[in-house]
């Protein structure tokens, strides 16, 4: 009997290899779990029922284009859109036999931190369904946490993989910018968007990363990995130097329970042999948020210009073309995309470009330099992933700026293009706390090594208490 709440992807693969379960049986047992629990949690926007392949299943965030499978990005403007080609990451998954279970919920165009901006309604946190699963990739994180998929792919612009993984108690990697293809992914902010894995263990996360990472001729912003992905095994961290940036660990708004769980995990790092030392990112945290909320909306306003009702997606009835464009966008976009399109268009408009977008790009250089300087001393940086545990549905929807603060601690490293891994490190008020490890570019293997050793030492049970 397969328990999807406990089965890791590695174990599912082993069942297949040893002939103890067929690919169809494994796929079916996840569909049954989805049938049981998804009506409450609403992790999926589309469930496949059937999908070819001879391997294990996977869930995909609904910004990832899938040939013949609807892809909406959580937006009404893409309702009914069915891609005619697979994203390159999907082609890679299919070449390894992986089978798509379905498309998971996301804030509209991945803009949000709770899935409450999805045009199709929010997902719920498997640890407490009155709370959000985080976002934008809340559907993927909640699905993995609730045993509705062994693993999943998400996308991350300012925290959309790491923050929901933290709030749902699983492992999420935002890879180094440029290591995973975005060909066939619905674009949000192209200088930031990255695709990455969500899983229940660090080893699964590393394995999924090894499948999707590498140069793609269809995406010229990708590069080959400088070294192959290594599945982590070590249970000690001797010789590693880990920095604890004050501003990321003492920021206003970090809940005491979150700070306490992270402090305990940092003590574990020392017990495992790592050298831990306080350090500082004086400008990155203070200026990261304003920098992000100029650059991301500016790029979004440009990327979302393609939704014009001409080639695909929603089209409004109108007698004239210009009116058709405007009414299509008025009807098709929800509040958050409209807000960001407005901020971005303003920041890029004549007379304001230098003061807003140009200045934000310079701040970005400062953020990158601050991080680079720390990596001359440290192998990795550690902090909470999210300032808070999962918050109640509706708690931040009325105030866009309050919602934006959910990503306060994930944004700086995203701006610098650096990899970040979130692993669960304990509970606060009965809800998971995520620990963020950030490394220099292409240091995923280092993050996996630290994450795996810490995961073994902490022994966190990723199955939500109410489902055990």
């Amino acid at each position, binding site marked *: 009997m397969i328990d999807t709440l406990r089965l890791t992807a590695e174990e599912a693969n082993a069942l297949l290899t040893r002939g103890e379960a067929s690919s169809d049986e494994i796929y079916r047992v996840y569909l049954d779990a989805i049938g049981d629990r998804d009506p409450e949690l609403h992790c999926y926007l589309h469930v496949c029922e059937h999908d070819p392949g001879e391997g294990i299943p996977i869930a995909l965030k609904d910004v990832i284009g899938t040939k013949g499978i609807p892809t909406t990005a959580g937006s009404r403007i893409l309702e009914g859109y069915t891609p005619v080609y697979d994203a390159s990451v999907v082609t890679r998954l299919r070449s390894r036999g992986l089978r798509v279970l379905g498309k998971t919920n996301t804030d509209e165009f991945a803009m949000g931190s709770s899935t409450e901006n999805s045009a199709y309604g929010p997902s719920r946190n498997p640890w407490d369904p009155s709370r959000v699963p985080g976002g934008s990739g809340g559907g993927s994180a909640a699905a993995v946490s609730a045993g509705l998929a062994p693993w999943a792919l998400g996308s991350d612009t300012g925290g959309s993989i790491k923050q929901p993984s933290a709030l749902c108690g699983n492992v999420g990697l935002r890879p180094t910018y440029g290591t995973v293809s975005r060909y066939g992914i619905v674009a949000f902010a192209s200088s930031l968007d990255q695709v990455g894995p969500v899983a229940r263990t660090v080893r699964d996360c590393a394995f999924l990363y090894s499948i999707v990472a590498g140069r793609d001729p269809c995406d010229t912003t990708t590069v080959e990995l400088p070294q192959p992905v290594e599945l982590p095994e070590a249970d000690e961290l001797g010789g590693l130097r880990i920095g604890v940036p004050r501003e990321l660990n003492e920021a206003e708004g970090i809940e005491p329970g979150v700070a306490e769980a992270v402090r305990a995990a940092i003590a574990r790092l020392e017990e495992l042999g790592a050298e831990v030392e306080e350090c500082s990112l004086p400008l990155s945290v203070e200026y990261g948020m304003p920098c992000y909320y100029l650059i991301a909306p500016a790029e979004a306003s440009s990327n979302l210009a393609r939704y014009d009702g001409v080639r695909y997606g929603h089209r409004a009835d109108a007698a004239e073309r210009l009116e058709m464009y405007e009414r299509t966008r008025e009807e098709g976009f929800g509040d958050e995309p409209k807000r960001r399109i407005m901020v971005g268009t*303003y920041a890029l408009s004549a007379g304001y470009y230098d003061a807003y977008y140009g200045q934000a790009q310079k701040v*970005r250089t400062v953020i990158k330099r601050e991080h680079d300087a720390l990596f001359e001393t440290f192998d990795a940086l550690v902090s909470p992933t999210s300032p808070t545990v999962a918050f109640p549905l509706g708690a931040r929807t009325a105030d866009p700026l309050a919602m934006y603060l959910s990503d306060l601690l994930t944004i700086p490293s995203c701006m610098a293009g650096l990899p970040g891994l979130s692993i669960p490190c304990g509970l606060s008020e009965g809800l998971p706390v995520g620990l963020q490890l950030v490394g220099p570019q292409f240091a995923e293997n280092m993050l996996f090594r630290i994450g795996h050793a810490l995961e073994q030492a902490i022994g966190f049970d990723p199955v939500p208490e109410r489902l055990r």
Partner: protein
Amino acid sequence: MAIDREQLLHVARLARLVLREDEVERLEGQLNDILEAVSKVSELDLSDVPPTSHPLEVVNVWEEDEPRPSLPVAEALANAPERDGDFFKVPPGGTA
């Protein structure tokens, strides 16, 4: 820097968004709050700092110019809201 109603409508027009009256009222307050928060970037004197447009040091990636199959017309038009033979069909007229 604050954005007034007239500027807001101008920006909406640039972005091809027609906003309902209730949206204009709500957005005016929200956009001003957001712009006030992001204006913090102007506190720093960065006249000597170069901009970063992209975190990866990749410049001018050239590929061989080799033809390969592209999407068949029928597939490229599969999601068209309206078509006319092998063309996307749109309503006439309207000046920007």
